[in-house]
């Protein structure tokens, strides 16, 4: 279980998140919607332990997030978190070691992920020569490298061609349906949210404006919450 309990986060004088309560169960996919600046990325980074909440707690498996717990979290952000001068294989090898994977296991895991994400023939290429879409896929491989229990994806479909988006979609579905992972992703694409997520949450001004099952019959209610949430200042 991934939980945000009364989480608030402030940047200087501005509250990016305010008293937010949200929980996601294993095997569940949550889509986070909201306009730019609504706090989606901040919430994902707080879930990942990259940002500490100003107030409140983030819990993973019932425990406050700790350094050890980070071993079970994978985060994909707008920043690829890959070294441009290294090849995809070298990047993944390095991050695998940071996550404590044994040298003997790394190669097999890298090959498997590369095959799943369609980057096998690009593994030996430096990240600097890759297109944005390929970087996104390599970055996703980095996030999934250590087979995390919690997968956090910040706009994972941006920059992907339809084929790559389809692959990613099937990866996310498999993570939830077959491996009972917790998946939280942000998107601006309402249809993608309804299509992929079991539950949808809308953020506005750092607050939770709507939360409910991804049921198409609730689309109007959700859109109304989306518009309402984006009207007020943060």
């Amino acid at each position, binding site marked *: 279980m991934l939980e945000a309990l009364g989480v608030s986060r402030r940047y200087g004088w501005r509250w990016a998140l305010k008293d937010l309560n949200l929980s996601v169960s294993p095997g569940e996919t949550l889509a986070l919607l909201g306009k730019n600046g609504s706090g989606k990325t901040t919430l994902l980074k707080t879930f990942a332990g990259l940002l500490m909440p100003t107030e409140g707690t983030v819990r993973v498996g019932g425990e406050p997030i700790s*350094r050890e717990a*980070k071993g079970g979290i994978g985060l994909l*952000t707008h920043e690829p978190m*890959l070294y441009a001068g*290294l090849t995809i294989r070298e990047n993944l090898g390095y991050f695998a*070691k*940071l*996550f404590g994977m044994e040298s003997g296991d790394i190669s097999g895991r890298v090959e498997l992920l590369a095959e799943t994400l369609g980057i096998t023939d690009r593994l030996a290429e430096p990240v600097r020569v890759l297109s944005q879409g390929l970087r996104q896929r390599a970055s996703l491989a*980095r996030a999934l490298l250590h087979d995390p229990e919690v997968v956090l994806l910040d706009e994972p479909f941006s920059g992907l061609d339809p084929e790559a988006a389809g692959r990613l979609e099937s990866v996310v579905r498999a993570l939830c349906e077959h491996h009972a992972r917790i998946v939280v992703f942000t998107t601006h694409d309402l249809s993608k949210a309804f299509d992929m997520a079991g539950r949808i949450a809308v953020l506005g001004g750092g607050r939770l404006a709507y939360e409910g099952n991804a049921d198409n019959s609730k689309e109007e209610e959700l859109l109304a919450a989306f518009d309402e949430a984006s009207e007020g200042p943060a």
Partner: protein
Amino acid sequence: MRRFFYVLFAVVEKDLRLEWRTKESLLVMVVFALLVLTLFSFAFGPGGGSGENARAVQAGILWISFLFACVIGLSRTMSVERESAGFSAMYLSPSDPSALYLGKVVSVAVLMGIMEVVGFAVLAVLYQANVWKSAGALAIVAISATVGIAAAGTLFSAMSARTRTREVLLPVLMFPVLVPVLIAAVKASEAHLGGGGWADSRDWIRLMLVYDVVFLVAASLVFEYILEE
């Protein structure tokens, strides 16, 4: 403990591999140190001046050139981490921040070590300094000072890496803290370049070793907070 060194060597391997590919930091460091040493050799003459102060001048120029070259190298090294969001990626991992920090220190120290070998060779040629006869003793002085400079430099460059004024902030933060190690390095180098024995340099080397230990331990403890966004 095995995992600690596993992570430490992973960081060193990654940094040196990146440097081997790009040669961005090392090349700039070596060229800068060479330029400073060459320019001062014209100013002070072949022996670094004459009389009793010649060795002190040589040692002073040498360590000042190393220090400024190191600042340039550190800025470059940390800009790679900034551009790749490398610190965030490190902080996302369950790795011991001390291992990550010490890995960065070792990488910086290796680059400085290569630059220093070139610097000492240039000092021997341009300043006719007594480098070869005291090579062993000077190596110990250089290692002691390099660890201290790399330890402080890594910490402060990581601190300033995410700020807008990082190029200015790094030397402003780093230089005052490095005063003890710089004075000790100059004095110990001066003693050995002048043909003096261990008696003249022992206390300065001890000072550097104490500085190294204190800084490495303290910085290892606070590095986690620097990685946080």
